[in-house]
């Protein structure tokens, strides 16, 4: 699979991961000012998962995301300007300020939405995949969910349904170790979420979520199998989040140096950069150029989000029904 | 006993099983002339007056306002002043003792509509009676064979009478092609081929009259006579607001004021009539059919096909009947016909004169045909 990764693809992968990281770091900083309404759940640290998987997808492939969905949105191609404006509650946002961080969606890009309901996406992507199968398309539908959602009945039902109907569906368990403040060591009854795959008659694969290349390869196999009618896969991506469950979470439930240690040893952007520059695939100058472009993009997205208008009172009543 | 006349609940159309007495228009002791309206009765579909079948005195009223009676149930008795009370009581007792309500079997053994394939359309029709040169009843724009509810059976007692659903109407195929009168007339003539009718007396109401005239122009040999009731095709004027309102109405509140224009007595527009029209309008293809017809035939509130002179030139027997209070097509058209015709204008009645003054219209048609 690595052979597919041309220079352009590597640049794209780095750009996507860097965009997610900067987007989330910036939100982390700006949220502390109190200007952003509501609450946000940041994806920083998990970039290799969304990026490694979504690089295999076109806009007709569907993904369902989670409340920690910014990374999936960016990796699936949702406009960063619209996302930032949405999170700031602006009319120019992806959802016109009606969804916010937890509901960013763009069905025209196959992004079925971040989802405020833990485990909500499993049944939905079964439907998207069923539609693909009945319409004889070779698209796939992917459900991202966390270790918390892995214990939800909806996910079990979806896993069962996907095998019963032999759907082109991939279930990606992003196990970052914590469902809110509760460790998956406590809440997940088996050693690995992927171990549950056999109970639902599908392959279960465990992959290092800090390693873009590993994720990309494992996802590629599962997606190719699904496109060819080989049915669903449960892919467990083991990774970590750098920030709290939500912004403001002091993470007292984690060991004092846990995050610092992971950042130091495993950070997906650092390891990616080391590997591609070491192998002579990309130069540090090329990566730095991307860093600068992304920084400018994020800066611009915040500048616009701050100055864009809020929705008007009349917007409250629109977009409930297509017709009523 | 011959001078005793029983007034019973009428059967207006196939589906009527019972009727409700709205009010008596004559009271016990009133002198009554044959043909006078004596009691107002309401079925699910329509309200109407029962007309006296004989001269006499209103001697008994056996049903009160609000009573619901089965079809055939005894409403009252008309008899001459000199008929003794005892004789009337005996007649009432006899009628009540021998009354048998219609059963489902009677219902199913009666005439029921059929469908026949005519070209690429299925055409629904109802045939009643036997004998003579057949009569074909042709409803108007937005109507169907039930528009002849009060006429069909009466006309069929001595001859074959068909009522058809034109293309786009009732339960016939909803494709109306170009919507031109000539196309509807073609469909009518093909229907006649299909049911084996070589020549017919055509009775058309409103747009149906236009279809009858077009058929006569296209195939004169196949038309014995024309009865044109509030007919289209006799002049250019037509109530464009009605046509547009009827076509555009999407719910009962919108359609009701339009339907009220059809009757001299707007109270005849019952809930059920409104509902039946809405049921028709909801059927797939009906909206398109009505829009095609209205733009082909009545664009800009003007009748596009005036066949008056062409029909006059044929020299066929023509009976023209109009409700004087017609709000859809002006009654002046009745008198504007240029050929030889019997013209009858009925006072106080509207566009649906064949329903509102059914007995009178039936008599006129029967006399005309014989």
């Amino acid at each position, binding site marked *: 699979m690595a052979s597919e990764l041309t220079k352009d693809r590597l640049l794209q992968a780095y750009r996507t991961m860097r965009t997610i990281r900067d987007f989330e770091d910036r939100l982390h900083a700006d949220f502390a000012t109190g200007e952003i309404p509501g609450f946000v759940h940041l994806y920083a640290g998990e970039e290799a998962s969304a990026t490694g998987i979504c690089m295999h997808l076109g806009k007709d492939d*569907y993904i*369902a995301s989670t409340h920690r969905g910014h990374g999936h949105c960016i990796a699936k191609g949702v406009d960063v300007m619209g996302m930032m404006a949405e999170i700031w509650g602006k009319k120019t946002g992806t*959802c*016109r300020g*009606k*969804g916010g961080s937890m*509901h960013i*969606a*763009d*069905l*025209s890009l196959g992004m*079925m*939405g971040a*989802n405020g*309901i833990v485990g*909500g996406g*499993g*049944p*939905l*992507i*079964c*439907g*998207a*995949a*069923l*539609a*693909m199968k*009945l*319409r004889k398309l070779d698209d796939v*539908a992917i459900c991202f969910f966390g270790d918390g959602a892995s214990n939800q009945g*909806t996910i079990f*039902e*979806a896993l*069962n*349904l996907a095998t*019963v*109907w032999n759907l082109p569906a991939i279930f990606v368990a992003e196990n970052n170790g914590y469902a809110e403040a509760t460790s998956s060591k406590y809440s997940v009854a088996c050693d690995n979420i992927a171990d549950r795959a056999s109970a639902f008659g599908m392959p279960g694969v465990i992959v290092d979520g800090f390693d873009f290349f590993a994720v990309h390869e494992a996802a590629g196999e599962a997606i190719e199998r699904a496109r060819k009618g080989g049915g669903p896969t449960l892919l467990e991506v083991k990774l970590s989040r750098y920030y709290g469950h939500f912004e403001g979470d002091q993470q007292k439930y984690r060991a004092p140096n846990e995050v610092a240690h992971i950042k130091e040893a495993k950070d997906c952007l650092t390891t990616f950069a080391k590997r591609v520059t070491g192998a002579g695939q990309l130069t540090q100058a090329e990566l730095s150029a991307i860093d600068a472009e992304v920084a400018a993009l994020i800066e611009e997205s915040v500048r616009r989000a701050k100055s864009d208008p809020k929705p008007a009172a009349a917007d409250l009543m*629109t*977009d*409930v*029904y*297509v*017709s*009523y | 006993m011959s001078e005793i006349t029983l007034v019973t609940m009428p059967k207006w159309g*196939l*589906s009527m099983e019972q009727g409700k007495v709205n009010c008596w228009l004559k009271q016990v002791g009133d002198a009554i002339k044959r043909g006078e309206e004596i009691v107002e009765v309401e079925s699910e579909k329509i309200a109407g007056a029962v007309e006296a079948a004989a001269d006499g005195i209103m001697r008994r009223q056996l049903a009160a306002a*609000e009573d*619901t009676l089965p079809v055939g149930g005894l409403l009252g008795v008309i008899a001459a002043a000199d008929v003794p009370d005892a004789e009337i009581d005996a007649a009432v007792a006899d009628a009540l003792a021998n009354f048998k309500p219609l059963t489902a079997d009677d219902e199913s053994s009666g005439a*029921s509509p059929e469908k026949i394939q005519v070209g690429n359309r299925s055409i629904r029709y109802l045939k009643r009676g036997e004998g003579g040169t057949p009569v074909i009843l042709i409803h108007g724009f937005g109507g169907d064979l039930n528009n002849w509810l009060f006429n069909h059976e009466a006309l069929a007692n001595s001859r074959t009478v068909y009522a058809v659903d034109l293309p786009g109407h009732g*339960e016939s195929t*909803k494709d109306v092609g170009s919507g031109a009168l000539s196309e509807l007339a073609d469909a009518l003539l093909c229907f006649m081929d299909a049911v084996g009718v070589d020549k017919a007396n055509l009775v058309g109401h409103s747009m149906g009259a236009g279809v009858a005239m077009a058929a006569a122009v296209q195939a004169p040999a196949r038309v014995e006579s024309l009865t044109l009731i509030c007919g289209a095709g006799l002049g250019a004027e037509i109530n464009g607001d009605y046509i547009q309102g009827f076509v555009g109405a999407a*719910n*009962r509140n919108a359609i009701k004021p339009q339907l009220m224009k059809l009757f001299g007595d707007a109270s005849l527009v019952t*809930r059920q009539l409104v*509902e039946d029209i809405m*049921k028709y309008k*909801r*059927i*797939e*293809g009906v909206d398109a059919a009505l829009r095609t017809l209205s733009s082909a035939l009545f664009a800009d509130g003007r009748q596009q096909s005036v066949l008056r002179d062409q029909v006059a030139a044929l020299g066929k027997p023509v009976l023209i009947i109009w409700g004087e209070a017609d709000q859809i097509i002006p009654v002046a058209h009745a008198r504007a016909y240029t050929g030889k015709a019997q013209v009858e204008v009925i006072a106080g009645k509207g566009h649906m004169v064949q329903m509102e003054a059914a007995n009178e219209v039936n008599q006129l048609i029967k006399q005309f045909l014989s």
Partner: protein
Amino acid sequence: MARKITYQQAINEALAQEMARDSSVIVMGEDNHGGEGSPGEQDAWGGVLGVTKGLYHKFPGRVIDTPISESGFIGAAIGAATNGLRPVAELMFVDFMGVCFDQIFNQAAKFRYMFGGKAETPVVIRTMYGAGFRAAAQHSQCLYSLFTHIPGLKVVMPATPYDAKGMLIQAIRDNDPVIFMEHKMLYTLEGEVPEESYTVPFGEANVVREGDDITVVTLGRMVHLADQAAQAMQKNGVHVEVIDLRTTSPLDEATVLESVERTGRLVVVDESNPRCSMASDIAGLVAQKAFGALKAPIEQVTAPHVPPPFSDALEDIYIPTVADIQGAIGRVMEFRR
């Protein structure tokens, strides 16, 4: 005379006609054909009461049996609706929505709003409701008011075979999620139904009977009981207007208010439990918007605030009766200040 078929046949015919018209319409649910994966007959059931029987062979691959997994397949129907299909999912009994409600009210109902008007979810969830089957507390509830409460859902409950066909076709063509509620006691009811396809619009109440003395607003199976009560009251000279709401979301407020403005009296008849019910909703609406017209207090005829019981002796008194409705009409008519 138009052809008569049953309520159940009307639903089957609507599905068949829409599946024939539009290849994106699919049907899914538990035993929707039945016999999947077993050596016997496929299409053995056609749904638990046979409503979808016969569709499986007419539309190969488009009538899909599901595991007993309501969250899974109701959610899948919703997901498929976001990706080009028009699924009609059967939630066997409305009482089972407890295990899949999230997919309906947090997902399907909210997509359009949360996504800023950029999503359409044309899914229909057909479900059986209502008491009278001696089916007890978990198979007999009405529950339409729970769905009606949720913005983004349309909630419809045809009372006649005619409405069942026309409203189901409307539901399938509708681009919003529709909860289509079928009263199990109405399945065998016969009525005139056109053979052709037609739609009955949502948000238009049906005035079943016109009258100027008192308004009875009702819905679902209760329409027939209310009409019988009205017919009986007519003999006493009381002219009852009977309004079948047909849909509770959208709600035809205008027809209700116009009627009460005219009659000044209102009885609401609702088979469901009384608290936060359609009965209380309609009563509230009228109290708020037609208070000046009221000549008497509003009466509600509902089931009591208890779950549907099992024993026939209990269920028969749980379900509102014609006599209950007549009693309420009588009390409202006789009220004097």
